[in-house]
């Protein structure tokens, strides 16, 4: 029995994460229903690669969509393989369109669910709260939020992010306050007032969003309508059988199609730019995930009485030691030097484990890398240590600590104090200079 571990349900979909949805869709299309179970564990640390989606078979773990597809092919001896019958040209299209969807849809999803402030605050973040357990509720969503912002930074659409605008406004406000104290001639005229800035960026946004969405939806729409026929039953590549591309498309684009967001620009863009694609994704979504909306409670505590389209199994509730480890890990990863030590240890153990799948040379390089960065680390600790010692020495020589010593010793014998204080001062002045 294969266990597929994913992020839990949200927005009536079986998972909140596009790649997890794609993997679930692939399973429903390729694997018989009694051969797998779906676990909404919502915790990447269940898998040794620290990623979801992940498939568990006994002690073997495989993560990421592409690897899972490969693993299913090997595991079933070629039986559970949607791409087995593709011709040469279709195979090339499959690779290219898969890469296209993952590369172009992910930033849009990031923008829609995470960077757009209203959506993140009122919908994405509460959705995570419903599927995560304490303390992950407080740790994971901000992490994902930051990662999504980093991924979409280069698109220059941060003005969808109200927090960023607020920051900007505050800066301008404080500049204005400061301006009150400085003679008028010395201030440069502010380039934009807040309202003009907002007005301008929202128009710029509109153009950018238009361009970005057109870039992804138009080729896909054209692919579906290329033979000029009503593809009511068709799939992307072949007419009668789905491929891994269809699974990937339904995963990523059904997230884009989430209708009831506060600010549903992505949904609107997709509907208006690609009506055929929208109909196709809606149809395939029903085929893969069932008609009924999926709620977190359905996935977290499935009862045998309510039949579901997907083979849910309740995830294990985290035990106390597990919660402790999570907290410890978070604290450790947030502490500067400790964090580096941990990364090194992880790389090293990965390089040295026999079944890591790395060639001998690669593991050699990796462990060399780990060793090298370890010595870097020791060096930086030594530098910091030396700096601290120098600072303390300086403070003592200046007399910050000596005065404390005076106070403490003042209670003791007067003579003792004088001798001691003088000695310390001499000793330290030697050190300090």
């Amino acid at each position, binding site marked *: 029995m294969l266990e597929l571990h994913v992020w839990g349900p949200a927005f009536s979909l079986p998972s909140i994460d596009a790649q997890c949805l794609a993997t679930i869709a692939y399973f429903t299309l390729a694997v018989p229903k009694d051969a797998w179970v779906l676990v909404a564990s919502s915790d990447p640390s269940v898998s040794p690669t620290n990623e979801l989606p992940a498939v568990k078979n006994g002690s073997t773990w495989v993560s990421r969509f592409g690897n899972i597809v490969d693993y299913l092919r090997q595991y079933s001896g070629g039986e559970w393989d949607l791409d087995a019958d593709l011709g040469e040209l279709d*195979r*090339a299209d499959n*690779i290219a369109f898969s890469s296209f969807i993952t590369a172009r849809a992910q930033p849009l999803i990031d923008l829609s669910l995470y960077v757009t402030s209203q959506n993140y605050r009122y919908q994405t973040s509460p959705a995570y709260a419903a599927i995560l357990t304490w303390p992950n509720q407080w740790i994971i969503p901000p992490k994902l939020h930051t990662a999504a912002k980093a991924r979409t930074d280069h698109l220059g659409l941060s003005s969808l992010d109200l927090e960023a605008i607020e920051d900007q406004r505050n800066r301008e406000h404080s500049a204005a306050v400061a301006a009150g104290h400085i003679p008028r001639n010395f201030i440069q005229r502010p380039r934009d007032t807040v309202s003009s800035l907002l007005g301008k960026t929202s128009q710029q946004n509109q153009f950018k969003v238009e361009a970005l969405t057109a870039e992804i939806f138009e080729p896909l729409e054209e692919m579906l309508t290329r033979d000029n026929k009503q593809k009511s039953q068709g799939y992307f590549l072949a007419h009668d059988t789905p491929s891994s591309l269809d699974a990937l498309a339904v995963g990523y684009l059904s997230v884009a199609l989430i209708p009831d967001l506060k600010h549903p620009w992505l949904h609107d863009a997709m509907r208006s730019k690609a009506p055929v694609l929208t109909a196709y994704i809606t149809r395939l979504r029903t085929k893969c995930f069932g008609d009924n909306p999926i709620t977190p409670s359905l996935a977290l505590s499935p009862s045998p009485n309510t039949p579901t389209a997907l083979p849910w199994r309740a995830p294990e509730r985290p035990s106390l030691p597990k919660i402790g480890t999570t907290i410890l890990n978070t604290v450790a990863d947030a502490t500067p030097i400790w964090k580096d030590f941990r990364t090194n240890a992880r790389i090293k153990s990965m390089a040295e484990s026999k079944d890591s799948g790395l060639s001998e040379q690669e593991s050699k390089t990796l462990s060399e890398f780990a060793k090298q960065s370890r010595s870097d680390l020791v060096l930086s600790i030594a530098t910091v240590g030396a700096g601290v010692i120098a600072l303390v020495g300086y403070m003592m020589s200046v007399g910050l600590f000596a005065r404390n010593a005076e106070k403490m010793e003042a209670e003791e014998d007067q003579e003792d104090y004088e001798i001691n204080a003088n000695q310390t001062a001499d000793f330290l002045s030697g050190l300090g200079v």
Partner: protein
Amino acid sequence: MPPEGRDGHGSTMPDRAHDIFSVPAPIKRVFDKFPLVILPSNDLPRRSNTSQNGNKLFVFTDRTGAKHGRPSFNPQCLKWQAYLKFVGIDFNIVPSNNHASPTGALPFLTPSLPVGGNTAIPSNKLQKWAIEEVHCEEEQQLNSRFEVYASLLDSRIRNAWLYTLYLDNENFNAVARRLYVDPSTTNSIVRSALSAQLQQAARTELLKQSHYIDADDLIVEAGNAFEALSTLLSDNQYFFGRPKPGLFDAEVFAYTHLILDEKMGWKRNTLGQLLKKHENLVQHRERLLKHF
């Protein structure tokens, strides 16, 4: 007595105040000697007078490479260098680095006939400029697969390239250090800092897309990408069956040439082995190399 005393008093007070603010005599004597010589102002740089008036493309390259118009060793630069050659625009290449660019990234071009003042054209506007100059086609519009297959190059193959060049330590020391780090400075401390920055930048870029860097995965994906590109090219001379090379060919060439180029001095070239499996891509690269 009183007037004398008052006088004496009155004369000493300003003197003291004067003492505090005035420069002590020995130091004043030293400063009186400056400036020792006033030199005439420098001439304008010789280059700006004698340089050719043609279009100038600023790319990563070395001096001899620039003189002979050889391919740049940076895929982004090579892409535009090749594209401008293919559409038939004359230009000279100038060795440069990111700090020289108005956008912070190479390549950029200064046209011989400036459009709207003496502006440099950054790489994302180069195609538009070229279309206005020589009225070539905007190839993205001709085939909807252009963007789709281009995503193979700017995600899959680029990721594998970043890994191979920057994160594979042997390759980094043999190739990237020689090409990017060593020409910029001779100071070994600055060199090691620059190297660390380069590697860190590549690592951050890869970690944006996944939780950890799986080298095998990156290489396998790049191999698949080559396979798809090879199928797309099939027996044609150029991509999309066009009679002459264009932007997509330039984009493919930018990677295939650098991966297959012996002069790069790769220590470990898994990408090259994967690429050599596809005979038509290798020939495509050789065909395009004749333009240089």
